């Protein structure tokens, strides 16, 4: 009994060596890990931008309200986690944003 001869296999490396095999779509589509940048303020749930409370170039203190966005019928108040300056605002009021969307860049 001969199994179907596949001319090309991919390889997979584990701690125990390198092995010939096929790879699943799920594995190939996995997202590379990007370290979290605390200066990038991102959404944690998809929603709509209700209000932007700061302007580019503005100095803010920890606890200042930066942005309000509405998701699942709830308003989410996003506040500054540290003192800093608003470098760039990447959304505008009324925008529908997906999860993990970049909203504000601080410096």
């Amino acid at each position, binding site marked *: 009994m001969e199994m179907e001869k596949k001319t090309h296999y991919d390889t997979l490396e584990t701690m125990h*060596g390198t092995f010939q095999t096929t790879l699943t779509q799920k594995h190939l589509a996995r997202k590379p890990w990007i370290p979290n940048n605390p200066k990038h303020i991102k959404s944690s749930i998809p929603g709509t931008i209700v209000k932007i409370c700061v302007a580019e170039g503005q100095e803010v203190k920890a606890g200042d309200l930066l942005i309000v966005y509405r998701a699942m019928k709830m308003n989410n108040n996003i506040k500054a986690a540290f003192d800093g300056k608003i470098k760039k605002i990447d959304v505008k009021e009324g925008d529908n944003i997906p999860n993990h969307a970049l909203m504000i860049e601080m410096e």
Partner: protein
Amino acid sequence: MTVEDEKVLELQHRKEKIYFGGGTKAIEKQKAMGKLTARERIIALLDKDSFHEYDIFVEHDGRDFGMQDKSLPGDGVIIGTGMICGQPVAIFAQDFTVAGGSLGFMHARKITKIMDYALNMRIPLIGINDSGGARIQEGVNALAGYGEIFFRNTLSSGVIPQISVILGPCAGGAVYSPALTDFVFVVENISKMFITGPEVIKTVLGEEISMEELGGAKVHSELTGNAHFYATSEDECFVQIRKLISMIPMNNTTKAEKIAPAMPLPEYDITKIVPSDPTVPYDVRDVIKALVDESEFLEVMEMFAANIVIGFGRIAGETVGFIANQPMVMAGVLDCDSSDKAARFIRFCDCFNIPIVTLEDLPGYLPGVDQEHAGVIRHGAKMLYAYSEATVPSITVVLRKAYGGGYIAMGSRHLRADFVFAWPLAEIAVMGPEGAANIIFKKDIVSAENPAEMRKIKIQEYKDKFANPYVAAAKGYIDSVIAPSETRMFIEHALKVSAHKNRSQPQKKHGNPPF
């Protein structure tokens, strides 16, 4: 005509009206979607003329929003009992032609009635789902109905096999009944399962997706792992269900029916399937087919986490559950999905007195940030838990690689496998030769004049010393090193001598597996 005759005739008329379901138009619509009617499905699935229906004259309980003036034949669900391959089963089928198969109070009560019956009579339950969801007009009574169903699914779990067949939409809370059952069957283009549908997702999130892409048969078979059997037509689906029912016991106090033994087909030659080079892949299903009667293997969750293979086959007429690493896909590694898949299957087998045969050939766990962050620790632990908890006969055969944590997880002696066999080319070691040499001989390799050459030498040294089954056999972790050609014979004997296995567990309410 006597009064009696007239009464019988009236009964016939009443029944016929209800048999007609939601009427010509609704039936035509159902057919246009490529679907059979609920009654046709039951007839197609069960043994000929074996179906007996109950609660046919049940009326719905809606009293508001104009519902009180409407008649819904059978309240949109058919319940009854019948036979599959001569074995009794209880069945319900939602009728989409009647108010979209929507679930109201009486509809749910019919379902829970047949569920109670199945549990009390200790016979398998089959639910055919084809429903638009809760009947909004009946308000919280519809929700109560779902809750009563989920509760009974849980109560019956591990007592009777429960099978869900998704032959239409199954949305919102309704999906949790199938999710609680043992096996979910889906059909291409017909099955649709989701918690929140495309419309809600579009309104709330602005994301556009079709029903099929969101929760179609393929999605649940390949991606989510919610479905166990995939078919391209309803007829194929019914054949699969009949096949499964014929291989599993009716309840947790009996064994699957033993049939006349038969040999595997000669074209599956077990000595010619597994390459000796541990890095070269092969299809482990060929090994299973070389072991089971008539080479007939009923694979479960074929498309999901294909790096592990699970399913049922018979050895000398007795049903066994196979768990096998698949070197052809992802080198057969363990990861979150494959651990979940195997763990739930082991627990099904353990619930229903089906011996477990594990075929092992894996290079450990899948490395990666995504895996670690997805919780491979707790997912992987489910498998250890399931193997350790199982008290059915458990037989493990190490075909080739058994390294590190993978060796422990895949039904090892230490998790109480009853018999552990290994083929002569098995490599049972704490690490693969490459990895081990890099750690143990790091100094020798780095300080060598030719590190690459030294590395090669040290890998070979490790291979010769540890990459074999005899170190483990010397400690009794392996019961026998066997030739591949002897494998079926050894499994058959092991099944025979462990037929009356009785290993007691400490008294407890229930354990706490890492769900």
